[in-house]
């Protein structure tokens, strides 16, 4: 790489320069090497058809391709079962990795398996592939055609995005979660506030890997192509990631927009129907929705189905009971998360509170199975979208919140904050984590 001008670069510009054959800046077209291509069950058939029929190709680097059966797992209909069968057969024939029913949600599984690393380019057939930015991988979602082209060639083309710089200052209050930070960020940027752009987040040493995943995951809800978190804290100390020095953005890099979020001023946040950027303080919505029963609470998904999310829910639900008339559905993001939650007593706590547990996977997030909503029902979910008809009927209403707020809502049967839940006696809270 030679760049006579040596202009300062953003993190997105640096990664795309590193994985291409020349130095690139925002607006340039880059053809880059792809380190991992992720295919989910819902596009497996289209992917195979593009590969075999349209391109007459096999994966150039089978070890760089992963198929994850997570969106409707286990299968709910014969046609879904057939599509999943074809995906399994394709994996066996071509040698690409297969993560079958129950292993978990694609983004969680790839992170656990070390298939997203600092400086990598990871393409996923799921829009929330921005999640990989948690470990400074350039993760982005694409459709079946682009995914097939990447698998066939080992490369993809990208327009190098401009970047939005988000700086975090201050310290979170104890009742505020990464989800609240992400919703605040989306609310501030707007649902199309970062379209075609990369959101480059500067948290210093704040946030765990899981919290960084929540932040990066939701960047696509502002339209972003990628959501990159500058490495720090746990990313440097806990997981043995090789974080190259070049990956840090240069002083003086060009940003299209910069915002600063003072974490100490933040309160729990909630997105009201039907747009993710329709963000309010939970306290405000709680008062507005005092007379609105909540029919279903869902804790899970690629946004908030990790062990720390289940812990946050269990901390609220310990010794409590889910309100009569409210269903609480909990789906761990992966088999690893489920095992941890089983071993440390979290699942027992949730089960005793009245939670219904599901197979690790995406669950009802996109309205295909395991807990879809009836007309007029109200759901508080830890997921990432509240679009019309997303989780079932078009007249159902979806509110998005953190696991702690979702858990409090399940106990109260109305939108609630954890501090609204009456304390339980010592006897009732004994046992379990």
């Amino acid at each position: 790489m030679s760049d006579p001008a040596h202009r300062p670069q953003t993190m997105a510009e640096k990664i795309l320069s590193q994985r291409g054959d020349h130095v690139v800046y925002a607006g340039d077209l880059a053809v880059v090497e792809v380190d991992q291509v992720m295919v989910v069950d819902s596009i497996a058939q289209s992917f195979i058809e593009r590969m075999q029929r349209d391109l007459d190709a096999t994966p150039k680097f089978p070890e760089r391709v992963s198929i994850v059966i997570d969106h409707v797992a286990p299968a709910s209909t014969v046609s879904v079962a057939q599509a999943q069968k074809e995906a399994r057969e394709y994996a066996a024939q071509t040698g690409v990795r297969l993560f079958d029913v129950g292993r978990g949600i694609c983004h969680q599984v790839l992170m656990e398996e070390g298939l997203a690393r600092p400086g990598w380019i990871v393409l996923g057939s799921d829009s929330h592939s921005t999640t990989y930015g948690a470990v400074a991988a350039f993760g982005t979602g694409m459709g079946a055609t682009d995914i097939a082209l990447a698998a066939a060639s080992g490369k993809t083309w990208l327009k190098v995005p401009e970047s939005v710089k988000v700086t975090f200052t201050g310290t979170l209050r104890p009742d505020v979660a990464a989800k609240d930070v992400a919703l605040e960020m989306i609310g501030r940027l707007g649902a199309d506030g970062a379209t075609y752009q990369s959101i480059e987040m500067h948290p210093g040493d704040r946030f765990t890997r899981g919290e960084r995943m929540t932040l990066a995951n939701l960047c696509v809800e502002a339209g972003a192509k990628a959501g990159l978190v500058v490495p720090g804290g746990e990313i440097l100390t806990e997981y043995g990631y090789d974080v190259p020095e070049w990956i840090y953005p240069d002083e003086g890099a060009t940003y299209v927009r910069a915002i600063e979020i003072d974490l100490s001023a933040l309160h729990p946040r909630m997105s009201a129907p039907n747009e993710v950027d329709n963000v309010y303080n939970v306290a405000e919505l709680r008062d507005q929705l005092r007379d609105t029963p909540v029919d279903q609470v869902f804790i899970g998904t690629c946004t908030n189905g990790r062990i720390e999310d289940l812990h946050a829910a269990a901390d609220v639900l310990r010794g409590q009971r889910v309100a009569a008339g409210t269903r609480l559905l909990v789906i761990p993001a992966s088999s690893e998360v489920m095992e941890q939650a089983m071993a440390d007593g979290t699942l027992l706590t949730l089960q005793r509170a009245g939670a219904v547990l599901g197979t690790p996977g995406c669950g009802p997030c996109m309205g295909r199975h395991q807990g879809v909503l009836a007309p007029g029902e109200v759901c508080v979910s830890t997921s990432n979208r509240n679009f019309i008809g997303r989780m079932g009927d078009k007249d159902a209403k979806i509110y998005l919140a953190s696991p702690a707020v979702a858990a409090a809502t399940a106990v109260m049967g109305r939108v609630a904050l954890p501090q609204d839940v009456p304390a339980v006696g010592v006897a009732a809270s004994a046992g379990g984590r």
Partner: protein
Amino acid sequence: MPRIWKFGDSVNTDDILPGKFAPFMAGEDVFQTFAFHYIRPEFASQVRPGDVLIGGRNWGLGSSREYAPVALKKLQIGGIVAPTFARIHYRNLLNLGIPAFEFDLTGLLDDGDEVSLDVNTGVLTSAGGTVQLPPPPEFLREALAEGSILAFFKKHGRFPGEPAP
């Protein structure tokens, strides 16, 4: 003559094709009949080949699901004109060869207006006059000249804009 179907801002991929009607759930042959199922239930049965969709800002936000635009392609829409598109969806449209033009027509045309759209020149004609729509981005014209990115890649073994191997 093709007609206009006019939509508002922020039409998302769940609006275009709800996830539960994905081809592997609803069936490969019929999933397109659920296009705009919730927001314009009459669409799939009344749309005619060549009809043009007009959207507001951020058309296609949401999922990467390519079968949402595939449903529109199966219904043979003539093109989509919106002031801004969500990026994954915009890529999918171009990859499928569905003409997508970044332009705001919402104040100029209404539901049911008859139009003709020349997708090669970007000239859109209606009773009210003629509008020149902006052409697709320059770096994609090379691919579109071959019909699609898939066709380009298959023929040349590289991406548009990439030096020959």
